[in-house]
């Protein structure tokens, strides 16, 4: 009961506050990131925050024409710190989940490492395009995948007729790919990029478009904000849309992940 009153009064104060400052609000925003999740966010030798998330935050604020300060915050205290108003937004590859949505709100997703097929160079697979599963795309193929993953579920749900081999680890699937016992493997592009560029991955590459339908792969990472700050959410969403439209997002994307489309849908 007491807690309920606390929450209710806190919410009331929050609403009152945000309403009162709404007009003047957000000429300065404090953004938190973790600084320990390369290459998305990390510290350089001098302790400065760098990485995709940091560059993205800077560009986002620039686009929204607001002043931003970026601070580092340990992952465990990320949401409590936001609720305690130590900062106003989280840009730290935080995945949008139902669990987190109970305590905070999120902007539209701003990055998502999509799924991709890896196979022998010269191969071409189009299994998902424009929101549609292309059902006969994998006919006659043997596809390796790590079991208990969203990728395994995606294959099983959409391609009942093909042969799917399930491995305990992604490494085993890649081993069998090089042995020629599977024709291709489906996994997270972030995981696969390093392998494709390594010696073992010589002669293999991304052989499909990249896709991440949320029904199977979740919604990606969003900017975390307090529930009452709906106006800030609007500002960020608008700026994000602008960045996607004017190519500045793509530029950032290419800088850190030349082969991966971080905003696939």
């Amino acid at each position, binding site marked *: 009961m007491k807690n309920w009153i606390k929450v209710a009064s806190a919410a009331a104060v929050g609403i009152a506050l945000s309403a009162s400052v709404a007009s003047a609000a957000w000429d300065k925003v404090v953004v938190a990131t973790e600084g320990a999740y390369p290459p998305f966010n990390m510290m350089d030798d001098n302790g400065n925050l760098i990485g995709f998330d940091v560059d993205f935050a800077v560009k986002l604020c620039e686009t929204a024409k607001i002043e931003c300060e970026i601070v580092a915050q340990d992952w465990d205290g990320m949401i409590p710190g936001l609720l305690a108003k130590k900062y106003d937004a989280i840009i730290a590859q935080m995945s949008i989940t139902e669990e987190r949505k109970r305590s905070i709100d999120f902007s539209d997703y701003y990055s998502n490492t999509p799924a991709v097929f890896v196979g022998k160079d010269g191969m071409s697979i189009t299994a998902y395009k424009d929101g549609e599963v292309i059902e006969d795309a994998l006919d006659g193929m*043997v596809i*390796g995948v790590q*079991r*208990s*993953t969203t990728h*395994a*579920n995606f294959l099983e749900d959409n391609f009942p007729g093909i042969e799917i*081999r*399930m*491995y*305990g680890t992604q490494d*085993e699937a890649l*081993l*069998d790919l090089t*042995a*020629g*016992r599977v024709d291709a493997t489906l996994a997270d592009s972030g995981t696969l990029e390093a392998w494709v560029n390594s010696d073992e991955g010589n002669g293999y590459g991304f052989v499909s478009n990249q896709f991440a339908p949320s029904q199977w792969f979740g919604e990606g990472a969003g900017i975390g904000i307090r529930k009452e700050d709906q106006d800030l959410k609007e500002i960020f969403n608008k700026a994000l849309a602008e960045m996607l439209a004017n190519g500045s997002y793509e530029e950032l994307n290419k800088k850190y992940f030349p082969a991966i489309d971080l905003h696939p849908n």
Partner: protein
Amino acid sequence: MFEDLLYVLGKYDTWLWRGFLLTIELLVISVTLGTLLAIPLAVARVSKKVWIQALPFAFIYVFRGTPLIGQLFMMYYGVGQLIANIDGIQDHWTWTYLRDPYWYCLLTFVLNTAAYVAEIMRGGIQNVPNGELEAARACGMSPSTTYRRIIFPRMWQMIWPAYTNDVIFTLKATSLASTVTMMELTGAARKIVARTALPYEAFISAGVIYLIIVYTLTFGFKGIERYLRRSEKRKEPKSGKPKAASA
């Protein structure tokens, strides 16, 4: 809990059914071929000539002395990779079979079963009473006739309980097939867990199916045991059971 169990059984019955069929298939083929291979191995193993018994001894020693999952990985990833690297093999018509995990799995299980059964058989052969062998020789039986008419029938009588045990062991060993992508019963249960996050329900379903298989096997093998020992009741009613092979 009970509702979840019904949900798992209702929604994923085809996965469990296919897993069950593959488990039975692996078991039957492994045990049949493994036993056939074990007979010459056991006969060579009891030979008094060192060069005849050395090879089966080494084979049995290696396969009984290393973990089955290690053998499976050696066969599938080790031998499999070597075969895959042969020039032009991937364009050859046999590649369809050579790339398939099924054959590697089956071969490992057959060899493993053969090693265990051969060792059980060795115990059985060596425990055939000397008097019976002397009697066979006195009747003028050749060594092969002695094997066929005296040693093997006596061996089967003695080793049957241990053999039954080994068949059940092999049934459980088939669950390792899922580590090299074969979706037998345990693999199916794992897949259901990944989908539903209901580990108890999935593994209880698979467990009950294993229990049913074991019960059926035990029942059938008991019947065969009675058949094998039919002569004892008729001819030596008071001498009690012969000593079982220790293996």
